[in-house]
Protein backbone atom coordinates (compact mmCIF):
# COMPACT_ATOMS: atom_id res chain seq x y z
CA UNK A 1 0.00 0.00 0.00
CA UNK A 2 2.71 2.42 1.05
CA UNK A 3 4.74 1.43 -2.02
CA UNK A 4 1.83 2.27 -4.28
CA UNK A 5 1.53 5.72 -2.71
CA UNK A 6 5.28 6.26 -3.04
CA UNK A 7 5.11 5.21 -6.70
CA UNK A 8 2.63 7.99 -7.35
CA UNK A 9 4.97 10.59 -5.85
CA UNK A 10 6.82 11.61 -8.96
CA UNK A 11 9.54 14.25 -8.38
CA UNK A 12 7.81 16.44 -10.98
CA UNK A 13 4.54 16.17 -9.09
CA UNK A 14 6.21 17.18 -5.82
CA UNK A 15 7.98 20.06 -7.53
CA UNK A 16 4.86 21.40 -9.21
CA UNK A 17 2.79 21.00 -6.02
CA UNK A 18 5.39 22.89 -3.97
CA UNK A 19 5.67 25.65 -6.57
CA UNK A 20 1.89 25.82 -6.80
CA UNK A 21 1.76 26.43 -3.03
CA UNK A 22 4.32 29.22 -3.33
CA UNK A 23 2.44 30.72 -6.30
CA UNK A 24 -0.88 30.63 -4.44
CA UNK A 25 0.69 32.37 -1.44
CA UNK A 26 2.20 35.05 -3.69
CA UNK A 27 -1.04 35.56 -5.63
CA UNK A 28 -3.48 35.75 -2.72
CA UNK A 29 -1.40 37.00 0.22
CA UNK A 30 1.86 38.59 -0.82
CA UNK A 31 1.12 40.71 -3.88
CA UNK A 32 -0.85 43.95 -3.25
CA UNK A 33 -4.20 44.45 -4.98
CA UNK A 34 -3.88 46.31 -8.24
CA UNK A 35 -5.41 49.77 -7.91
CA UNK A 36 -7.12 50.18 -11.30
CA UNK A 37 -8.76 46.79 -11.75
CA UNK A 38 -9.07 45.62 -8.17
CA UNK A 39 -9.04 42.00 -7.03
CA UNK A 40 -10.08 40.68 -10.44
CA UNK A 41 -6.59 41.48 -11.73
CA UNK A 42 -5.33 38.46 -9.77
CA UNK A 43 -6.89 36.26 -12.48
CA UNK A 44 -3.96 37.34 -14.64
CA UNK A 45 -1.59 35.26 -12.48
CA UNK A 46 -3.62 32.20 -13.39
CA UNK A 47 -4.57 33.15 -16.95
CA UNK A 48 -1.08 33.84 -18.31
CA UNK A 49 0.48 30.57 -17.04
CA UNK A 50 -2.33 28.38 -18.44
CA UNK A 51 -2.14 30.29 -21.76
CA UNK A 52 1.59 29.58 -21.76
CA UNK A 53 0.84 25.91 -21.05
CA UNK A 54 -1.60 25.66 -23.94
CA UNK A 55 0.95 27.29 -26.26
CA UNK A 56 3.56 24.75 -25.12
CA UNK A 57 1.02 22.06 -25.90
CA UNK A 58 0.49 23.31 -29.46
CA UNK A 59 4.23 23.64 -29.96
CA UNK A 60 4.90 20.08 -28.78
CA UNK A 61 2.02 18.64 -30.87
CA UNK A 62 3.36 20.32 -34.01
CA UNK A 63 6.95 19.35 -33.35
CA UNK A 64 6.23 15.74 -32.48
CA UNK A 65 3.73 15.36 -35.36
CA UNK A 66 6.44 16.49 -37.72
CA UNK A 67 8.92 14.10 -36.10
CA UNK A 68 6.42 11.24 -36.36
CA UNK A 69 5.92 11.78 -40.09
CA UNK A 70 9.67 11.90 -40.51
CA UNK A 71 10.87 9.08 -38.23
CA UNK A 72 7.66 6.98 -37.94
CA UNK A 73 8.54 6.27 -34.32
CA UNK A 74 5.56 5.56 -32.02
CA UNK A 75 6.97 7.62 -29.18
CA UNK A 76 6.44 10.85 -31.14
CA UNK A 77 2.80 9.93 -31.66
CA UNK A 78 2.36 9.27 -27.94
CA UNK A 79 3.98 12.59 -27.11
CA UNK A 80 1.74 14.38 -29.63
CA UNK A 81 -1.51 12.95 -28.28
CA UNK A 82 -0.48 13.46 -24.65
CA UNK A 83 0.39 17.12 -25.16
CA UNK A 84 -2.68 17.70 -27.35
CA UNK A 85 -4.96 16.47 -24.56
CA UNK A 86 -3.25 18.47 -21.84
CA UNK A 87 -2.91 21.48 -24.15
CA UNK A 88 -6.65 21.49 -24.92
CA UNK A 89 -7.47 21.39 -21.19
CA UNK A 90 -5.09 24.28 -20.54
CA UNK A 91 -6.61 26.07 -23.55
CA UNK A 92 -10.12 25.70 -22.14
CA UNK A 93 -8.93 27.08 -18.78
CA UNK A 94 -7.24 29.97 -20.61
CA UNK A 95 -10.42 30.88 -22.53
CA UNK A 96 -12.64 30.63 -19.45
CA UNK A 97 -10.35 32.57 -17.10
CA UNK A 98 -9.87 35.22 -19.80
CA UNK A 99 -13.62 35.68 -20.16
CA UNK A 100 -14.14 35.94 -16.39
CA UNK A 101 -11.46 38.65 -16.31
CA UNK A 102 -12.71 40.48 -19.42
CA UNK A 103 -16.31 40.87 -18.24
CA UNK A 104 -15.58 43.30 -15.36
CA UNK A 105 -12.48 44.92 -16.94
CA UNK A 106 -13.48 45.24 -20.61
CA UNK A 107 -17.26 45.15 -19.93
CA UNK A 108 -17.63 42.31 -22.47
CA UNK A 109 -17.15 38.56 -22.22
CA UNK A 110 -15.56 38.36 -25.64
CA UNK A 111 -14.21 40.67 -28.35
CA UNK A 112 -12.61 40.28 -31.76
CA UNK A 113 -9.14 41.07 -30.43
CA UNK A 114 -6.39 39.30 -32.40
CA UNK A 115 -4.96 37.12 -29.62
CA UNK A 116 -8.45 36.02 -28.55
CA UNK A 117 -9.47 35.09 -32.07
CA UNK A 118 -6.23 33.22 -32.69
CA UNK A 119 -6.48 31.32 -29.41
CA UNK A 120 -10.07 30.31 -30.10
CA UNK A 121 -9.42 29.07 -33.65
CA UNK A 122 -6.34 27.12 -32.54
CA UNK A 123 -8.41 25.62 -29.71
CA UNK A 124 -10.94 24.39 -32.30
CA UNK A 125 -8.20 22.91 -34.50
CA UNK A 126 -6.77 20.89 -31.61
CA UNK A 127 -10.23 19.80 -30.46
CA UNK A 128 -10.76 18.54 -34.04
CA UNK A 129 -7.38 16.78 -33.79
CA UNK A 130 -8.54 14.89 -30.71
CA UNK A 131 -11.97 14.15 -32.20
CA UNK A 132 -10.35 12.76 -35.33
CA UNK A 133 -8.27 10.41 -33.21
CA UNK A 134 -11.37 9.33 -31.32
CA UNK A 135 -13.34 8.62 -34.51
CA UNK A 136 -10.59 6.83 -36.41
CA UNK A 137 -9.86 3.11 -35.86
CA UNK A 138 -6.54 2.59 -34.00
CA UNK A 139 -3.41 1.78 -35.95
CA UNK A 140 -0.52 3.37 -37.78
CA UNK A 141 -2.85 5.02 -40.27
CA UNK A 142 -4.56 6.96 -37.50
CA UNK A 143 -1.19 8.07 -36.14
CA UNK A 144 -0.10 9.24 -39.58
CA UNK A 145 -3.29 11.17 -40.34
CA UNK A 146 -3.36 12.74 -36.87
CA UNK A 147 0.25 13.85 -37.40
CA UNK A 148 -0.85 15.52 -40.65
CA UNK A 149 -3.46 17.55 -38.73
CA UNK A 150 -0.75 18.53 -36.24
CA UNK A 151 1.50 19.78 -39.05
CA UNK A 152 -1.36 21.61 -40.81
CA UNK A 153 -2.23 23.33 -37.50
CA UNK A 154 1.37 24.52 -37.24
CA UNK A 155 1.33 25.87 -40.81
CA UNK A 156 -1.96 27.64 -40.13
CA UNK A 157 -0.95 29.30 -36.85
CA UNK A 158 1.03 32.29 -38.24
CA UNK A 159 -1.58 32.83 -40.98
CA UNK A 160 -4.40 32.83 -38.42
CA UNK A 161 -2.53 35.29 -36.22
CA UNK A 162 -1.80 37.60 -39.15
CA UNK A 163 -5.42 37.47 -40.33
CA UNK A 164 -6.80 38.01 -36.82
CA UNK A 165 -4.51 41.02 -36.44
CA UNK A 166 -5.67 42.57 -39.72
CA UNK A 167 -9.26 41.79 -38.80
CA UNK A 168 -9.08 43.47 -35.40
CA UNK A 169 -7.56 46.58 -37.02
CA UNK A 170 -10.55 46.77 -39.35
CA UNK A 171 -12.99 46.13 -36.49
CA UNK A 172 -11.55 47.77 -33.37
CA UNK A 173 -12.59 45.73 -30.33
CA UNK A 174 -15.33 47.37 -28.30
CA UNK A 175 -13.73 47.83 -24.90
CA UNK A 176 -15.54 50.13 -22.50
CA UNK A 177 -14.67 48.76 -19.08
CA UNK A 178 -12.74 50.63 -16.40
CA UNK A 179 -9.10 51.39 -17.10
CA UNK A 180 -8.50 48.49 -19.43
CA UNK A 181 -5.32 49.96 -20.84
CA UNK A 182 -4.15 51.91 -17.80
CA UNK A 183 -0.57 51.32 -16.75
CA UNK A 184 -0.28 48.82 -13.97
CA UNK A 185 1.11 50.23 -10.73
CA UNK A 186 2.46 46.87 -9.64
CA UNK A 187 5.72 46.98 -11.57
CA UNK A 188 8.21 44.30 -10.62
CA UNK A 189 5.89 42.60 -8.09
CA UNK A 190 3.70 41.50 -11.00
CA UNK A 191 6.70 39.99 -12.74
CA UNK A 192 7.73 38.02 -9.65
CA UNK A 193 4.30 36.49 -9.11
CA UNK A 194 3.88 35.72 -12.80
CA UNK A 195 7.24 34.00 -12.90
CA UNK A 196 6.46 31.79 -9.89
CA UNK A 197 3.02 30.95 -11.20
CA UNK A 198 4.26 30.22 -14.73
CA UNK A 199 6.95 27.91 -13.36
CA UNK A 200 4.38 26.07 -11.24
CA UNK A 201 2.04 25.57 -14.19
CA UNK A 202 4.89 24.61 -16.52
CA UNK A 203 5.95 21.79 -14.21
CA UNK A 204 2.32 20.75 -13.80
CA UNK A 205 2.01 20.68 -17.61
CA UNK A 206 5.13 18.56 -18.00
CA UNK A 207 3.99 16.23 -15.23
CA UNK A 208 0.54 15.77 -16.82
CA UNK A 209 1.99 15.15 -20.29
CA UNK A 210 4.47 12.66 -18.86
CA UNK A 211 1.71 10.79 -17.00
CA UNK A 212 -0.52 10.71 -20.08
CA UNK A 213 2.44 9.49 -22.13
CA UNK A 214 3.00 6.60 -19.73
CA UNK A 215 -0.71 5.64 -19.81
CA UNK A 216 -0.60 5.76 -23.60
CA UNK A 217 2.44 3.49 -23.59
CA UNK A 218 0.66 1.00 -21.29
CA UNK A 219 -2.37 1.05 -23.61
CA UNK A 220 -0.16 0.27 -26.61
CA UNK A 221 1.67 -2.46 -24.69
CA UNK A 222 -1.65 -4.01 -23.70
CA UNK A 223 -2.84 -4.11 -27.32
CA UNK A 224 0.47 -5.68 -28.30
CA UNK A 225 0.20 -8.31 -25.52
CA UNK A 226 -3.37 -9.20 -26.49
CA UNK A 227 -2.31 -9.59 -30.12
CA UNK A 228 0.64 -11.78 -29.14
CA UNK A 229 -1.45 -13.96 -26.84
CA UNK A 230 -4.21 -14.46 -29.41
CA UNK A 231 -1.57 -15.29 -32.02
CA UNK A 232 0.04 -17.91 -29.77
CA UNK A 233 -3.41 -19.34 -28.93
CA UNK A 234 -4.04 -19.71 -32.67
CA UNK A 235 -0.78 -21.54 -33.28
CA UNK A 236 -1.44 -23.70 -30.19
CA UNK A 237 -4.83 -24.74 -31.61
CA UNK A 238 -3.29 -25.75 -34.88
Amino acid sequence: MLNKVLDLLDPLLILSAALMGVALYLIFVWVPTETNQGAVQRILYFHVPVAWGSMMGIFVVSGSSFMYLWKKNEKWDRLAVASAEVGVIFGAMMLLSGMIWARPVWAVWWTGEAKLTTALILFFIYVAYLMFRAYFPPGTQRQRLAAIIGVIGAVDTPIIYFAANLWSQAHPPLVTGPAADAESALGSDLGTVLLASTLAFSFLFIYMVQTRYKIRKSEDDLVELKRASSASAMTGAN
Partner: protein
Amino acid sequence: MMGSLAVIWAIGRKDLLLEIRNKDVVVAVAGFALLVLVIFTFAIDLNQGNAELVGPGVLWAGIAFAGVTGLNRAFALEVEGSTLEALMLAPISRDLIYLGKALGNFLFIAVAQIIVIPVFAVLFNLVVFRWEMLAISLLTTIGFSAVGTLFAGMSVRVRAREVMLPLLFLPVVTPLLMAAVESTSHMVYGRSWSDMAQWLQLAVAFDVAFLVVSAFIFQHILED
Protein backbone atom coordinates in the same frame (compact mmCIF):
# COMPACT_ATOMS: atom_id res chain seq x y z
CA MET B 1 6.82 19.21 -66.30
CA MET B 2 4.45 18.71 -69.25
CA GLY B 3 3.98 15.10 -68.17
CA SER B 4 2.98 16.18 -64.64
CA LEU B 5 0.48 18.68 -65.99
CA ALA B 6 -0.98 16.00 -68.23
CA VAL B 7 -1.43 13.67 -65.23
CA ILE B 8 -3.08 16.40 -63.15
CA TRP B 9 -5.38 17.25 -66.03
CA ALA B 10 -6.22 13.58 -66.65
CA ILE B 11 -7.38 13.12 -63.03
CA GLY B 12 -9.21 16.45 -63.04
CA ARG B 13 -10.86 15.62 -66.36
CA LYS B 14 -11.98 12.22 -65.05
CA ASP B 15 -13.77 13.91 -62.15
CA LEU B 16 -15.17 16.52 -64.48
CA LEU B 17 -16.56 13.87 -66.86
CA LEU B 18 -18.22 12.03 -63.98
CA GLU B 19 -19.65 15.33 -62.80
CA ILE B 20 -20.99 16.28 -66.23
CA ARG B 21 -22.79 12.92 -66.34
CA ASN B 22 -24.44 12.94 -62.92
CA LYS B 23 -24.12 16.61 -61.77
CA ASP B 24 -23.97 15.46 -58.13
CA VAL B 25 -21.51 17.87 -56.63
CA VAL B 26 -22.21 21.17 -58.39
CA VAL B 27 -25.96 20.89 -57.84
CA ALA B 28 -25.45 19.98 -54.18
CA VAL B 29 -22.99 22.81 -53.52
CA ALA B 30 -24.98 25.45 -55.40
CA GLY B 31 -28.30 24.32 -53.93
CA PHE B 32 -26.96 24.27 -50.39
CA ALA B 33 -25.32 27.71 -50.76
CA LEU B 34 -28.48 29.22 -52.26
CA LEU B 35 -30.54 27.89 -49.37
CA VAL B 36 -28.13 29.42 -46.86
CA LEU B 37 -28.49 32.78 -48.64
CA VAL B 38 -32.28 32.56 -48.70
CA ILE B 39 -32.48 31.53 -45.04
CA PHE B 40 -30.31 34.48 -44.06
CA THR B 41 -32.55 36.91 -45.92
CA PHE B 42 -35.23 35.83 -43.42
CA ALA B 43 -32.94 35.48 -40.41
CA ILE B 44 -31.64 39.02 -40.83
CA ASP B 45 -33.96 41.96 -41.36
CA LEU B 46 -32.44 42.99 -44.68
CA ASN B 47 -32.77 46.59 -45.82
CA GLN B 48 -30.90 49.18 -47.87
CA GLY B 49 -28.74 50.08 -44.90
CA ASN B 50 -27.31 46.72 -43.88
CA ALA B 51 -26.96 44.66 -47.08
CA GLU B 52 -23.35 45.86 -47.55
CA LEU B 53 -22.61 45.13 -43.91
CA VAL B 54 -23.89 41.55 -43.67
CA GLY B 55 -23.95 40.43 -47.31
CA PRO B 56 -20.29 39.43 -47.76
CA GLY B 57 -20.27 37.40 -44.56
CA VAL B 58 -23.44 35.53 -45.50
CA LEU B 59 -22.15 34.82 -49.01
CA TRP B 60 -18.85 33.30 -47.89
CA ALA B 61 -20.31 31.45 -44.93
CA GLY B 62 -22.80 29.89 -47.36
CA ILE B 63 -20.11 28.91 -49.85
CA ALA B 64 -17.87 27.50 -47.10
CA PHE B 65 -20.66 25.35 -45.62
CA ALA B 66 -21.82 24.23 -49.05
CA GLY B 67 -18.24 23.55 -50.14
CA VAL B 68 -17.86 21.02 -47.32
CA THR B 69 -20.78 18.95 -48.64
CA GLY B 70 -19.22 18.92 -52.11
CA LEU B 71 -15.76 18.03 -50.85
CA ASN B 72 -17.21 15.07 -48.98
CA ARG B 73 -18.50 13.65 -52.25
CA ALA B 74 -15.22 13.93 -54.14
CA PHE B 75 -13.48 11.14 -52.23
CA ALA B 76 -16.62 9.28 -51.22
CA LEU B 77 -17.13 8.39 -54.90
CA GLU B 78 -13.60 7.03 -55.16
CA VAL B 79 -14.07 4.89 -52.05
CA GLU B 80 -17.53 3.61 -53.03
CA GLY B 81 -16.26 2.47 -56.41
CA SER B 82 -12.94 1.25 -54.91
CA THR B 83 -11.23 3.40 -57.53
CA LEU B 84 -8.90 4.99 -55.00
CA GLU B 85 -6.83 1.80 -55.02
CA ALA B 86 -6.64 2.02 -58.80
CA LEU B 87 -5.40 5.59 -58.56
CA MET B 88 -2.79 4.48 -56.03
CA LEU B 89 -1.66 1.67 -58.32
CA ALA B 90 -1.11 4.07 -61.20
CA PRO B 91 2.59 4.76 -61.80
CA ILE B 92 2.33 8.43 -60.87
CA SER B 93 3.54 10.28 -57.83
CA ARG B 94 1.07 10.94 -55.04
CA ASP B 95 1.35 14.71 -55.13
CA LEU B 96 -0.02 14.64 -58.69
CA ILE B 97 -3.05 12.63 -57.51
CA TYR B 98 -3.60 15.32 -54.89
CA LEU B 99 -3.29 18.15 -57.39
CA GLY B 100 -5.63 16.37 -59.83
CA LYS B 101 -8.28 15.86 -57.17
CA ALA B 102 -7.82 19.45 -55.99
CA LEU B 103 -8.29 20.66 -59.57
CA GLY B 104 -11.59 18.78 -59.80
CA ASN B 105 -12.80 20.24 -56.50
CA PHE B 106 -11.70 23.71 -57.57
CA LEU B 107 -13.76 23.44 -60.76
CA PHE B 108 -16.87 22.20 -58.90
CA ILE B 109 -16.82 24.96 -56.30
CA ALA B 110 -16.02 27.57 -58.97
CA VAL B 111 -18.94 26.48 -61.18
CA ALA B 112 -21.27 26.47 -58.16
CA GLN B 113 -20.23 30.07 -57.49
CA ILE B 114 -21.15 31.07 -61.04
CA ILE B 115 -24.70 30.12 -60.05
CA VAL B 116 -24.62 31.40 -56.46
CA ILE B 117 -22.99 34.84 -56.85
CA PRO B 118 -25.56 36.29 -59.32
CA VAL B 119 -28.38 35.12 -57.04
CA PHE B 120 -26.56 36.74 -54.13
CA ALA B 121 -26.39 39.99 -56.13
CA VAL B 122 -30.15 39.87 -56.68
CA LEU B 123 -31.15 38.90 -53.13
CA PHE B 124 -28.87 41.43 -51.43
CA ASN B 125 -29.14 44.07 -54.16
CA LEU B 126 -25.38 44.52 -54.41
CA VAL B 127 -23.09 45.10 -57.40
CA VAL B 128 -20.76 42.12 -57.65
CA PHE B 129 -19.89 41.87 -61.34
CA ARG B 130 -16.43 43.33 -61.00
CA TRP B 131 -12.88 42.11 -61.53
CA GLU B 132 -12.30 42.32 -57.79
CA MET B 133 -15.02 39.70 -57.22
CA LEU B 134 -13.38 37.38 -59.76
CA ALA B 135 -10.00 37.69 -58.02
CA ILE B 136 -11.47 37.15 -54.53
CA SER B 137 -13.54 34.22 -55.71
CA LEU B 138 -10.62 32.50 -57.47
CA LEU B 139 -8.22 32.94 -54.54
CA THR B 140 -10.77 31.69 -52.01
CA THR B 141 -11.76 28.71 -54.12
CA ILE B 142 -8.12 27.69 -54.61
CA GLY B 143 -7.60 27.74 -50.84
CA PHE B 144 -10.85 25.90 -50.12
CA SER B 145 -10.01 23.12 -52.55
CA ALA B 146 -6.35 22.92 -51.40
CA VAL B 147 -7.29 22.37 -47.75
CA GLY B 148 -10.56 20.59 -48.50
CA THR B 149 -9.03 17.96 -50.77
CA LEU B 150 -6.42 17.08 -48.15
CA PHE B 151 -8.96 16.78 -45.32
CA ALA B 152 -11.53 15.00 -47.49
CA GLY B 153 -8.88 12.41 -48.33
CA MET B 154 -8.30 11.95 -44.61
CA SER B 155 -11.83 11.91 -43.29
CA VAL B 156 -13.18 9.63 -46.01
CA ARG B 157 -12.22 6.60 -43.94
CA VAL B 158 -13.63 7.91 -40.66
CA ARG B 159 -16.97 6.46 -39.60
CA ALA B 160 -18.54 9.91 -39.14
CA ARG B 161 -16.99 11.63 -42.15
CA GLU B 162 -19.88 14.06 -42.64
CA VAL B 163 -19.14 15.40 -39.16
CA MET B 164 -15.37 15.16 -39.28
CA LEU B 165 -14.70 17.11 -42.47
CA PRO B 166 -16.32 20.41 -41.39
CA LEU B 167 -14.73 20.14 -37.93
CA LEU B 168 -11.29 19.92 -39.54
CA PHE B 169 -11.90 22.17 -42.52
CA LEU B 170 -13.68 25.22 -41.08
CA PRO B 171 -11.21 26.27 -38.35
CA VAL B 172 -8.24 25.84 -40.69
CA VAL B 173 -9.79 27.99 -43.46
CA THR B 174 -10.90 30.73 -41.04
CA PRO B 175 -8.10 33.15 -42.08
CA LEU B 176 -9.02 32.66 -45.75
CA LEU B 177 -12.68 33.20 -44.90
CA MET B 178 -11.77 36.45 -43.13
CA ALA B 179 -9.82 37.55 -46.22
CA ALA B 180 -12.74 36.72 -48.53
CA VAL B 181 -15.32 38.49 -46.36
CA GLU B 182 -13.20 41.58 -45.73
CA SER B 183 -12.16 42.09 -49.36
CA THR B 184 -15.73 41.47 -50.56
CA SER B 185 -16.97 44.13 -48.16
CA HIS B 186 -14.34 46.57 -49.44
CA MET B 187 -15.67 45.79 -52.91
CA VAL B 188 -19.37 46.28 -52.15
CA TYR B 189 -18.53 49.62 -50.50
CA GLY B 190 -16.89 50.55 -53.81
CA ARG B 191 -13.34 50.85 -52.49
CA SER B 192 -10.25 50.32 -54.62
CA TRP B 193 -7.80 47.43 -55.01
CA SER B 194 -5.31 49.07 -52.66
CA ASP B 195 -7.78 48.87 -49.76
CA MET B 196 -8.10 45.12 -50.10
CA ALA B 197 -4.46 44.50 -51.10
CA GLN B 198 -3.43 43.18 -47.68
CA TRP B 199 -6.31 40.72 -47.60
CA LEU B 200 -5.63 39.51 -51.13
CA GLN B 201 -1.96 39.03 -50.24
CA LEU B 202 -3.02 37.01 -47.22
CA ALA B 203 -5.23 34.84 -49.45
CA VAL B 204 -2.36 34.29 -51.89
CA ALA B 205 -0.04 33.34 -49.02
CA PHE B 206 -2.65 30.92 -47.65
CA ASP B 207 -3.16 29.31 -51.08
CA VAL B 208 0.54 28.88 -51.79
CA ALA B 209 1.32 27.58 -48.29
CA PHE B 210 -1.44 24.98 -48.29
CA LEU B 211 -1.02 23.86 -51.91
CA VAL B 212 2.68 23.18 -51.34
CA VAL B 213 2.36 21.63 -47.87
CA SER B 214 -0.66 19.51 -48.83
CA ALA B 215 0.90 18.22 -52.05
CA PHE B 216 4.02 17.32 -50.08
CA ILE B 217 2.13 15.67 -47.20
CA PHE B 218 -0.54 13.86 -49.25
CA GLN B 219 1.68 10.80 -49.79
CA HIS B 220 1.22 10.00 -46.08
CA ILE B 221 -2.56 9.81 -46.55
CA LEU B 222 -2.51 7.28 -49.37
CA GLU B 223 0.18 5.15 -47.72
CA ASP B 224 -1.02 1.72 -46.60
